[in-house]
């Protein structure tokens, strides 16, 4: 009996030293509690991948991820119902005010890039690159092009068939803001679908079609649609993992974020989750079809997270939204 007890003690002691040696991994396994996440369905695949891996390491932490959309996520975030909000765009001024009203401080964490890809049918042999001005001619409500010839006189006079994601999506918002600006409008005689797979099918089936969606859909359908190089002023650039990561695919690379409630970040399971997120997101983002943030920016992100730096860097002191590449805006 006594020897058994001694053996048990020894085993316990051995186990505890092993756990110390294993360091963080063992700590994760001891964590309990819950991490509640909601927001953008664009960011969802990344957060799902992180939550899956985190769940393997920290089995007793109950992680839930919802898909209410970026706006819906921020609403729940401001009501204090969730710890982390997934967002496919920076937080808006009205949303910051709502959070301030309920005394919620947040930490802004860019996690990956999505490259909006403009695609045409593979049989379209004329349109290999477009300037932002030309994209505006195709999609803008004013001076809208009826045929490809209207965009560039050297191109055939075929009518353009235009596809676009749903007007409620963050993808659409970002595209509109970059191409037309805040106050302009996208033309209304276009085919809209909430499901990007429908856009892929539409463009794949019509020689004169053009459409745009997140790069994950393009990477999966490279044989069915062809990407158009974008000339943002420094010559045409094709969307690839490299050109999106280094920022040369401009202005259609957009950052994706998670926003962490500062009060929640004091809880060990939430802090561990975000630590884990930043440690693994570079690898996991690529696996689910997105593009990682370069190490130079990611180290800034980590430093800001470690310092629990609150507030957004995408709204300036005058309350105006700040535009531009992540590398320039995010310090």
């Amino acid at each position, binding site marked *: 009996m006594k020897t058994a007890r001694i053996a048990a003690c020894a085993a316990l002691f051995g186990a505890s030293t092993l756990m110390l040696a294993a360091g963080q991994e063992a700590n994760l396994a001891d964590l309990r509690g819950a991490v509640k996440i909601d927001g953008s369905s664009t960011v969802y695949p990344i957060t*799902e991948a992180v939550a899956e891996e985190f769940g393997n390491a920290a089995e007793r932490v109950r992680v839930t991820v919802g*898909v209410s959309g970026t706006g819906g996520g921020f609403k729940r975030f401001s009501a204090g119902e969730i710890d982390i909000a997934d967002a496919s765009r920076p937080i808006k001024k009205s949303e910051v005010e709502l959070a301030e009203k309920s005394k919620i401080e947040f930490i802004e964490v860019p996690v990956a890039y999505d490259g909006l890809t403009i695609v045409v049918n593979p049989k379209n042999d004329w349109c290999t690159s477009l300037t932002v001005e030309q994209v505006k001619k195709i999609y803008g409500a004013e001076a809208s092009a009826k045929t490809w010839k209207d965009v560039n006189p050297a191109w055939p006079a075929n009518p353009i068939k235009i596809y676009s994601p749903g007007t409620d999506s963050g993808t659409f918002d970002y595209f509109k803001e970059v191409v037309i600006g805040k106050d302009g409008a996208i033309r209304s005689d276009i085919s809209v679908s909430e499901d990007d797979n429908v856009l892929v099918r539409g463009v794949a089936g019509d020689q004169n079609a053009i459409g745009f969606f997140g790069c994950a859909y393009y990477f999966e359908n490279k044989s069915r649609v062809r990407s158009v190089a974008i000339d943002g002023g420094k010559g045409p650039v094709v969307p690839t993992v490299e050109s999106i990561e280094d920022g040369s695919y401009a202005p259609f690379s957009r950052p994706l974020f998670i926003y962490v409630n500062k009060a929640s970040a004091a809880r060990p399971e939430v802090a561990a989750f975000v630590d884990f997120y930043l440690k693994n997101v570079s690898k996991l983002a690529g696996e689910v079809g997105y593009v990682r943030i370069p190490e130079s920016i990611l180290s800034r992100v980590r430093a800001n997270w470690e310092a629990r730096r609150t507030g957004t860097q995408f709204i300036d002191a005058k309350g105006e939204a700040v535009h531009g590449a992540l590398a320039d805006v995010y310090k």
Partner: protein
Amino acid sequence: MATPRPAATRVFQNRAFLWLCLVATNVAVVVLAVLLLSIFWQGFGELDWDFVTKSASRKAEDAGIKAPLWGSIWVCAICALTALPLGVGTAIYLEEFARRTRFTRIVQTNILNLAGVPSIVYGILGLTAFVRMFGAFGSNLENAVEFGSPESLFYLRLPFGSSVLAAGLTLMLVILPIVIISTQEALRAIPSSLRSGAMALGATPWQTVWGITLPAAVPGIMTGAILAMSRAIGESAPLLVVGSALFLRFTPENLMSEYSVLPLQIFNWAQRPQAEFHALAAGGIIIQLAVLLTFNGVAVLIRQKLQKPLL
């Protein structure tokens, strides 16, 4: 007196009408058959024990539907257990007991209107009434009033938050008008001679309803219940509003648990870029059909057990 039309014309009209009805029936059946065949064609390969026992994953081959499956079962069970007694009770009151006053007419009109309200509106109502309880307990869940331990089966919390109970009650609101209206129709179809007969033998109104009217109306009520549950199990819009999660690795353990539901998971898989996930969506649809058939099977069973011949 009009001259009768020639017999040949009348026979032709009769035949034509028969054919028209047959075509109409077959259009519906063929569309359904094509839909089911394509779903089974795509999704049958995904179905195995792993699919229903594994959680969501970024890798299609590791992904399963455990959490949404159990979430849907919990939410729909709560919905059925609350909507049926409430709905049938309301209908019995309105049909058998209430006198036709201005008040009952207003209630009746309201119910008819509510049956046509888009379900997302009920989602907003559920969010205010069940999830946040009008902010009466503060906005943060940390201030919630709790009863019992969070790990026990009988844990309760006010406000309900984004829990299976809040979701089930929200779906109850969605299907309540359908249950009430179909029960009323079923009760109206019972010949009043049956009620008069019971009354003549000295039965109280309560005995008449419980012993005569209700058993005779059970088939109609259960048909309404089947239609209502079929709607409830396919709803996703109101559940998104009341805060259904999509990714979780655990199944509900009490009424306050977080949850996911099948339609959300199916939609998410269907709109992923990778084709492997589209096959998973088809597999999810088969599982959802199976859950729906199970719920409806229970309704059919109740119908068989309770049905009494009218003679």
